[in-house]
C-alpha cells in the first residue's frame, strides 16, 4: 500500500527566508503527487501537482516542488516566505483504484512565520 511521510510536524521560518517542506512517499508504480495548503478552519487548496515530465513543477503563490524518484521525495520549496504563508501543508500521493483515484495524505506540516 502507498504511504506518505511528512517528517516535520511543525516548522518555524522567518519572513523573507527560504522554505523547504519535506515529503517522502512509498508507492510501487509511478506516483502522482500533490501538495495542498490548508488555512485554519478552511478546506484544502491545491498548490501544485506532478504527473509526469519535468521533475520541477511550479505552483501557485510562488511555490515549487521537485520530484526525485531516486529519493522517493517530493519536497516543497519557496525562495522567500510571506506572513500569509502560515498554514498547514499536506503532501499526497494518488492511488489508482478501480473507477476512482484515491488520495493518501501525509499528516501535514504546520508552518509558522515569525517577523
Amino acid at each position, binding site marked *: 500500500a502507498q504511504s506518505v511521510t511528512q517528517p516535520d510536524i511543525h516548522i518555524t521560518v522567518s519572513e523573507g527566508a527560504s522554505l523547504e517542506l519535506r515529503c517522502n512517499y512509498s508507492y510501487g508504480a509511478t506516483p*502522482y503527487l*500533490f501538495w*495542498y495548503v490548508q488555512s485554519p*478552519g*478552511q*478546506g*484544502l*487548496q*491545491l498548490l501544485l*501537482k506532478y*504527473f509526469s515530465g519535468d521533475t520541477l513543477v511550479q505552483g501557485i503563490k510562488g511555490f515549487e516542488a521537485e520530484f526525485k524518484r531516486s529519493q522517493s521525495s517530493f519536497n516543497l520549496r519557496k525562495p522567500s516566505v510571506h506572513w500569509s504563508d502560515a498554514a498547514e501543508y*499536506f503532501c499526497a500521493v494518488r492511488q489508482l483504484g478501480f*473507477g*476512482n*483515484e*484515491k*488520495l493518501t*495524505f*501525509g*499528516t*501535514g506540516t504546520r508552518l509558522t512565520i515569525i517577523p
Partner: protein
Amino acid sequence: SQTIHQWPATLVQPVGSPLSLECTVEGTSNPNLYWYRQAAGRGLQLLFYSVGIGQISSEVPQNLSASRPQDRQFILSSKKLLLSDSGFYLCAWSEEGNQPQHFGDGTRLSIL
C-alpha cells in the same frame, strides 16, 4: 468554472442524534466525490467515495454512511452520533483521469 459547496460550516450535536451533511458541486458532470474526516493534528482520512449516482464505496468501518442521490450531490449521514464522530469533515470532487481533487470549506462537527 466549477465550485463546491458544503454546509453547514459548523454544527454542534448531542450524542445519539442524527446527522446530515451536504455537499454539492457545480459546473461539472459526473464528478468523483469524496468525504474525508480530519481529526485534530492529523491528516485526512478518506471515509467514502463515489464514482456515480448511487455508487458508494466505504473505506473504513464506522458509524457513518454516505449517499449520492443526484449526480452532483453527496450526503454524509449518521443515525446516532458518537463522541468519536467529532472532527472536521471535508468534501472533495475530481474529474476522471489525471485530475486533482478539489475541496470544500469543510464542516466542523462537535459532539456533546
